């Protein structure tokens, strides 16, 4: 089964977008937004798409509107936010596939190379290497899986730092 690639956008930018929108009353025209942020339209769309994937906003017409969930996240504390977002990511098909893959391994871990191969299977027509860093980033944030660059291992669950 093929999945959509993750947008290469950090969590901070997504949260920032939603916070900005909430400050504007919860709704804004996309073009206007891009202009206001002095960001390229393409980049703005990427952030919006990512926020949409997480259920924080939706995009009717040419606007971007904050969802109920988005409001919840913005109002939450730093720690609660993580839990909320983890809740969403747990159900992501791509993340589920990755977690299943990891669970099936001995010691629930794989090497970087193996993960890249797996990603190439899961995400068609995309540069697996590029998606890799987003996935690591979001995985770490949600603490769904972790990555250690020293040993180049990808593993399930919470961080194993000493």
């Amino acid at each position, binding site marked *: 089964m093929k999945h959509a690639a993750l947008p290469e956008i*950090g*969590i*901070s*930018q*997504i*949260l*920032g*977008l939603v*916070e*900005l929108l909430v*400050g*504007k009353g919860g709704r804004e025209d996309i073009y206007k937004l891009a202009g206001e*942020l*002095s*960001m390229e339209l393409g980049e703005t769309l990427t*952030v919006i798409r990512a926020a949409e994937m997480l259920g924080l906003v939706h995009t009717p017409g040419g606007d971007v509107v904050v969802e109920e969930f988005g409001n919840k996240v913005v109002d939450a*504390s*730093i*720690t609660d*936010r*993580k839990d909320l977002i983890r809740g969403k990511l747990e159900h992501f098909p791509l993340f589920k596939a990755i977690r299943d893959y990891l669970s099936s391994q001995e010691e629930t871990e794989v090497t970087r190379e193996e993960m890249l191969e797996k990603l190439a299977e899961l995400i068609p027509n995309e540069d697996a290497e590029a998606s890799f*860093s987003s996935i*690591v*980033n979001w*995985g*770490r*944030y*949600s*603490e769904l899986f*972790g*990555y*250690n*660059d*020293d040993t180049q291992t990808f593993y399930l669950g*919470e*961080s*194993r*730092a000493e």
Partner: protein
Amino acid sequence: MMPDSHTLIELQHVTRRFLLPQGEVTVIENISFKALEGEFITIVGPSGAGKSTLLRMMNGLLPPSEGMVLYNGREQKGINLDTAMVFQNFGLLPWLTVSQNIELGLEARSKDVVYRRSQVNRYIAKVGLEGYEEAYPRELSGGMKQRVGLARALAVEPSLLLMDEPFSSLDVLTSINLRNELLDIWSDRENVVNTMIMVTHNIEEAIELSDRILILSNRPGKIAGELKIDLPRPRRKRDPLFSEYVDRVFSLLA
């Protein structure tokens, strides 16, 4: 947070000169001001006005050429261990992980490894970096790196937090996010830090965050004005009072 009447840090007639190849340059001239405990102060001004130098003198990184820096009423000598600094370009050591970078700040202050580790974990949680403990700076986005810088500063539990344009190297959306998280941390009752002094060139940011704004003029840096921000937090840019303040700052800068 209601400011106490107790003066935490005070600059008395502080002047700072630098010896450059082209001769001696006076970066800051005869600046005096007080920061009260519990205040959030921002320092704004054109670049080159010496804002960063001012901050470094409060930290103790640089001594004043003339005048005194008083902390809790006593003259400051050397690095002030009750302060901590957050840098514009993060200042993280590339060969240390997130945890190790945060722990570094504690190494000079405590030999108790258990204590240090627990502090590190505590503040990683406070800034939302759980999951990133073993990551290296090269693997992090700008926003995450600055969170590490923040955690490192907070972990030593300073009374005074100094920030040198902490959001300038971040993209717009990330800075919005981090600013809000900073306010969250600021209002956290559990915090040891209650006083913050921040340098920025972003006027709106200054008005959004601080109780008081110090406006510096260009070389040599002198205090061109001071402004108290009497708006309740959270502050909205659409608020007409907000724009009024913006205008006032601009006029003082001119």
